[in-house]
């Protein structure tokens, strides 16, 4: 009698493992290529949905590096009174230089300021008509990058209390406002990314669900001939990850194209503000990698969910 044989040995399973996966991968790829238009549409939608948050993350990232540059230009301008002695100025300068909140100080004497003004304005003749130099002696105090807004405020207060000071200018308001706008933008991008990622899960999940429905007969036949849950699930997981992978690659192409269009004006903007051109492309490649890996992961997760929903149904239902 032909009895019921023992399950295949472990080594047989291991040996056939890679064959099964390779076959599955190629079959899934073949199925995607068999309907090129539908596949292209699906992966393009996925690509756009992935590129949008990635692009916004990049923009916010760039803005953040820009404002980091702005913080260091948050200098405090200290204008002395006219009749101040040089010794007094030096004393104050030495005192401030020892302050731990201060990074460095740029000293501009009134003569120097006039000289610069003469050169820059081209109004030398007009200036010659003046009896005396109207420009004050100035200290530009650059705080350390670590100094908090609170510390800066107290620094400004202590400077104001010094003798012989005409005016202290510390215009940090706009920089702070910009900072809070960027924080808001950051949150907005986070919410938008979550929504778009959810959309990608839905797109891939629905596509896989349609795939399951169109291959219902194959699934039932496979199940009848002893296919395991994993066997039935596997091709759909490969399809899902392929959608994610191709979608991710499309997103990268979109990102790289947009970047090459944007980088030049951005560079100009950066240099016009005399900031260090920190707009390097290294975050771009990191984001691209993230998009591709994330796309594949999203593909696997969403197809897993789609199949899990279906398999629950399949287990309780009977064969047609």
């Amino acid at each position, binding site marked *: *009698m*032909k*009895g*019921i*044989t023992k*399950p*295949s040995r472990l080594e*047989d*399973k291991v*040996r*056939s493992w890679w*064959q*099964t996966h390779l*076959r599955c991968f190629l079959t899934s790829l073949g199925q995607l290529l068999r309907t090129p238009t539908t596949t292209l549409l699906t992966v393009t939608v996925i690509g756009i949905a992935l590129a949008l948050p990635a692009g916004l993350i990049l923009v916010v990232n760039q803005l953040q590096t820009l404002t980091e540059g702005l913080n260091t230009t948050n200098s405090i301008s200290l204008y002395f009174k006219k009749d101040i002695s040089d010794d007094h100025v030096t004393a104050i300068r030495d005192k401030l230089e020892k302050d731990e909140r201060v990074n460095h100080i740029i000293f501009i004497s009134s003569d120097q300021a006039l000289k610069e003004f003469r050169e820059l304005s081209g109004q030398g003749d007009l200036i010659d008509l003046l009896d005396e130099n109207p420009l004050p002696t100035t200290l530009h105090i650059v705080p350390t990058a670590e100094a908090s807004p609170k510390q800066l405020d107290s620094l400004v207060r202590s400077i104001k209390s010094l003798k012989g000071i005409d005016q202290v200018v510390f215009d940090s308001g706009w920089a702070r406002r910009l900072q809070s706008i960027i924080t808001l933008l950051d949150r907005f991008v986070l919410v938008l990314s979550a929504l778009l990622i959810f959309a990608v899960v839905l797109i891939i999940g629905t596509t896989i669900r349609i795939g399951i429905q169109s291959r219902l*007969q*194959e699934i039932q*036949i*496979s*199940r*009848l*001939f*002893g*296919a*395991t*849950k994993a*066997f039935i699930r596997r091709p759909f997981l490969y399809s899902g990850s392929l959608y994610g992978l191709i979608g991710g690659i499309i997103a990268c192409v979109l990102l790289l194209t947009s970047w090459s269009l944007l980088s030049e004006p951005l560079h100009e903007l950066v240099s016009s503000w005399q900031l260090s051109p920190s707009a390097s492309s290294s975050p771009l490649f990191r984001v691209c990698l993230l998009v591709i890996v994330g796309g594949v992961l999203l593909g696997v997760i969403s197809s897993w969910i789609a199949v899990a929903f279906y398999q629950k149904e399949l*287990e309780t239902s*009977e*064969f047609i």
Partner: protein
Amino acid sequence: MIRFSEVTKLYPGQGEALKSLSLFIPAEQMVFVTGHSGAGKSTLLRLIALMETHTRGQILIDGINIQKIPEKHRFYLRRQIGFIFQDHRLLNDRTVFDNVALPLVIAGFDHREIPRRVHAALDKVGLLNKENKFPVTLSSGEQQRVGIARAVVNRPPILLADEPTGNLDPELSIEIMKLFEEFNRIGVTVVIATHEVELARSTGHRIIALKDGRLMTPDDASLQEHTL
């Protein structure tokens, strides 16, 4: 090999397809299950193939109570059974070769072993030259033989056929029956559901006649008493 003890199958809203049915099919036997449509032939086969679950009673296959096997382990028992449908149920987007290879792929056979086995099965049903064709290009008889090749390629100890000759002319039907007899000779337990009583009788094999979900033939009743 297959033992039914007072098995009842209830379809909600459609009544009982099998009513307290008891029977025994020993290993290596070839059996015909006959009866009119609605007599419970298909249900009997589908219960053995684990395509459905019975409502009451007990089904033993090779000594295993199938009800006690959880769904996640049932795949293994299903691999021991070859099933042939009346309407073939071939996958039309795959070649004859791929259709026949499916059970082997499912069972995780080595890729070098698969062509050998597929060719052996196709050779058996006389379709070796059609392996690269798609099912739709074949005649109904040829499609049925592809279905048979698919069912036997894994060399299962049990072969079930639901109206395998339903769409075929008498000559082809006899040919198909001869094929089943060949498998039976090498030790496969064969159960064939058919409404063609004359064809079944002509083969001289055991006949289990069903009517309204119960056994009709007295000799089967005695056999069942004897074996239970």
